[in-house]
């Protein structure tokens, strides 16, 4: 590491990053519970997500985060299961966001690698893995709770309740910028874009913001966003909503908005690698951009209600290994799911999927990364397998993502749940419409 550091040149940023990473590792070893570590006991965890292709931005950074998490846990003595320390090992399989490869990967991870838990991005790939999950009883997690239905009893969404948390961003926008009254929205026409469209429509309606036009749905194969943006801003809207567009779309859409002279408010679910957008546009243009995924060096994450272990140190380690501009929405998410799984396995005294699931859901609450949360979802998904609580609203200020506030998703849902169900139904996104 040091040889590489001096070979590549010792910059201030690298020095600070490495210093923080070393401090983080030391702190991890000191803070996390120490147990007698038995190197021969290993618990394997499967990572079945896209690592290549257009959706890799929501898989690869998550694996990178998990590797840091695993090293820290192993350095601190591993996971205590039934009184014995187990080292954790991640086994990854690139499903290329293809259901047939998800099936092959699930088979390999369960029947050959003998993993005890599999983390997925979900979406198009879950139906490919579902028959394997049903047959083997393996516990899976997804980042997309729209995969949940009453018959997905071994599938949980313990971190990201996409896209429901998007309501918090719109609610915050309406409270803080009440002068903004009209909005337009664009999204890719796919399984990820549509439930998010329904959610944003509900959130805008609840906030009293008028949609100027129907959401503009573009084909995922779109590469030229100039006409999309031209049409989008033709009515001079106060707000442009980018829904849950993939990073490959958010970047060119922002560039087009910049080039076509849009000066209004932008809100988006994600802004992965936003530093690159700032570099392609300008700091002034991106000022005030609202999204939902914080950088973990944010001081607001040091609050004692936050359950993610040492977020600032985690971010520093991640940035020093892969670069701060490689930090994305999922960099921390799979690691936070592992925090929950670890707690469940230690509580159950077993790594077996059914025992861990029962321990995780005991009492109906769980320690979500952003605070205590409820196992919830029967209304929308037909099963209470989504862990829902607070979610941060993030705004770009001076070229840097900053948490403005945490807001409660259940509180919004208690007030406006019927609106959400109405729009979800209109887009065929309720669980009983998805078969």
């Amino acid at each position: 590491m040091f040889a590489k550091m001096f070979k590549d040149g010792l910059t201030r940023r690298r020095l600070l990053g490495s210093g923080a990473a070393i401090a983080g590792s030391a702190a991890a070893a000191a803070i996390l519970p120490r147990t007698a570590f038995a190197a021969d006991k290993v618990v394997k965890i499967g990572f079945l997500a896209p690592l290549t292709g257009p959706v890799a931005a929501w898989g690869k950074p998550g694996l990178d985060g998990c590797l840091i998490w695993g090293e820290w846990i192993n350095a601190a003595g591993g996971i205590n299961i039934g009184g014995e320390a187990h080292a954790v090992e991640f086994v990854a399989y690139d499903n290329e966001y293809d259901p047939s490869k998800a099936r092959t990967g699930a088979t390999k991870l369960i029947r050959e690698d003998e993993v005890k838990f599999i983390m997925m991005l979900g979406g198009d790939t879950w139906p490919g893995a579902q028959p394997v999950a049903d047959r083997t009883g393996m516990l899976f997690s997804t980042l997309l709770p729209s995969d949940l239905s009453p018959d997905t009893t071994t599938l949980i969404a313990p971190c990201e309740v996409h896209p429901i948390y998007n309501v918090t961003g719109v609610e915050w926008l309406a409270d803080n910028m009440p002068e903004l009254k009209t909005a337009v929205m664009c999204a890719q026409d796919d399984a990820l874009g549509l439930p998010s469209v329904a959610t944003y429509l509900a959130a805008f309606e609840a906030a009293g913001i008028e949609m100027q036009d129907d959401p503009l749905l573009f084909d995922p194969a779109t590469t030229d966003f100039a006409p999309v943006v031209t049409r989008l801003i033709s009515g001079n809207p106060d707000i442009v909503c980018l829904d849950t567009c993939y990073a490959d779309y958010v970047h060119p859409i922002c560039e087009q908005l910049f080039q076509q002279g849009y000066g209004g408010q932008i809100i988006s679910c994600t802004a992965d690698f936003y530093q690159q957008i700032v570099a392609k546009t300008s700091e002034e243009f991106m000022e005030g951009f609202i999204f939902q995924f914080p950088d973990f060096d944010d001081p607001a994450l040091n609050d004692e209600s936050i359950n993610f272990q040492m977020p600032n140190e985690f971010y520093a380690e991640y940035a020093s290994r892969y670069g701060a501009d490689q930090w994305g929405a999922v960099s921390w998410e799979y690691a936070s799911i592992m925090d929950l799984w670890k707690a469940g396995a230690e509580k159950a005294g077993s790594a077996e999927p059914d025992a861990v699931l029962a321990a995780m859901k005991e009492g109906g609450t769980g320690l979500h990364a952003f605070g205590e949360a409820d196992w919830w979802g029967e209304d929308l998904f037909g099963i209470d397998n989504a862990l829902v609580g607070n979610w941060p609203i993030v705004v770009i200020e001076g070229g840097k993502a900053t948490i403005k506030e945490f807001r409660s998703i259940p509180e919004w849902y208690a007030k406006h749940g019927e609106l959400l169900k109405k729009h979800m139904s209109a887009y065929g996104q309720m669980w009983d419409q998805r078969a």
Partner: protein
Amino acid sequence: MHSRVTNLAAFLGFGAILLALPHTLSFSQQEILVFLTINVLVVASYRLLTLTGEWSLGHVVIMGVGAYASALLSKRLGIYVPASMLLGAVTAAMVALALSFPLFRMKGFYFLIGSFAAGEIIRLLWKRFREPFGGPKGIKKIDPMPDFDIGIYAFDFFEPISYYYFALAVVGVSLWVMWRIERSPVGLTFHAVHWQDKLAEASGVNVRAYRTLAFVLASGFAGLSGALLAHYIGTINPNSFDVEQMVFVLTWTIVGGTATFYGPILGCVVLTILNEIVLREAGFEQMRPLIYGLILILSVLFMPKGLESLVRGALSWRNAGKKKVGETEATE
């Protein structure tokens, strides 16, 4: 007589290897073998289309037509899965017949672009109409092939070995039919349409009818492969049949070569093993697209006639060796 016995022995030996093959593989490799078997039918059917000289960019979408039709027929109308697979193939062939009217007003590059546009229209229809196609999410929980027992073997079609045997039988019969078509006067006319279309036309051959026939037959087999895929993985969506998948089919075909029946199949087998097994096992999982692209460039540069040229070279070298031995013996 001696040659026939040798061929029969080689055929039986190859069949025995194919039957024993899944038992030598790991679980995930068995899964890959199922998809490989289905893809063999896709590339072989694609070659049938290229016999008349036309290259399509809509072949994978036509495969999807078979998949969607079979899935909907079994799921909505309760049609027995093997029957719905055949009906899926027929639907794909019928859709190809309908498309042939506008498409075969074009040739060469224009046909290529036209087929891409036609394919995209079909894909967009699947996305636009949630009823009955399921929209962007596609169709889930497609009925699986029903399990059955033949006494010596119980077929559980969740298990890749069972589905491999079923797919192998279907693909084997399909390949035999395609082989017979190519060797028949119809197949020879396909070649004539490709290489000497003006001469063929002057000889009274209805060139457009033969191009249409090749397109419809190839599409029927592609539809059958789509149906096989749909009832195995249990889910399909418009992205499963997008241009990226088509690029894979083109790559297998180009790297394998199209001069022989086995060329594209060889390309499909070699590249699938390389991409899905060798590179993954070697730890190059995330570099696979890069390496795959490099192989395509190198093969086009250094092996323009495809992998089949290596086989043909080896066979002619062996035959030359035999001839030389025979001449030496005759001299002595």
